[in-house]
């Protein structure tokens, strides 16, 4: 699972049928300190995460295919949880 922050949203008309009607957001992966790590990725968002909200992404296609009810969907990343607590700061 990937800890990430929602940084944006995409709009697409011509897309795989399984993506129609599903919100897809741009997520910035974060490390354990909450720092940005790597380039942003796209994830399906069934939970309607808010802008800059921290989320947990499951990077296994099985759950995404189950959510869109299409066993032939190319989707892979899906938001499974919204993070409430702020990240613990190192106290040293």
């Amino acid at each position, binding site marked *: 699972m990937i800890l990430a922050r929602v940084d944006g949203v995409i709009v697409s008309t011509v897309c795989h049928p399984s993506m129609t009607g599903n919100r*897809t957001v741009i997520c910035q992966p974060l490390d354990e300190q909450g720092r940005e790590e790597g*380039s942003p990725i796209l994830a399906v968002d069934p939970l309607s995460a808010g802008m800059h909200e921290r989320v947990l992404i499951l990077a296994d296609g099985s759950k995404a295919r189950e959510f869109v009810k299409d066993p032939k969907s190319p989707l892979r990343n899906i938001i499974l949880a919204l993070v409430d607590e702020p990240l613990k700061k190192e106290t040293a």
Partner: protein
Amino acid sequence: MRLGHVIGRVTLSQQDPAYKGGRFLLVQPFAKPQFAGASMTPLAPGSSLVVYDNLGADVGHVIGFTESAEASAPFDQPTPVDAYNAAIIDTLFYTPPSA
């Protein structure tokens, strides 16, 4: 899924029959500046890749592509595809929090 700019086409003479109906695009994945609206050139750092496309994307378009096992999921037969164009992006809204 990642985003990328279509920077070229790949034309084949001999190909696996499973590829019928699609074509191959040369895609440069986005780095952070491209999400914020940076242009296609100069190219983003990182290596480009070849993406299977049956939606009809062309050079200059922004596409969302899937890699690894999910790339071959949309096919009826087991198909040797590494990256699959899942969406042609119309607009993207990207506003990272200001540091």
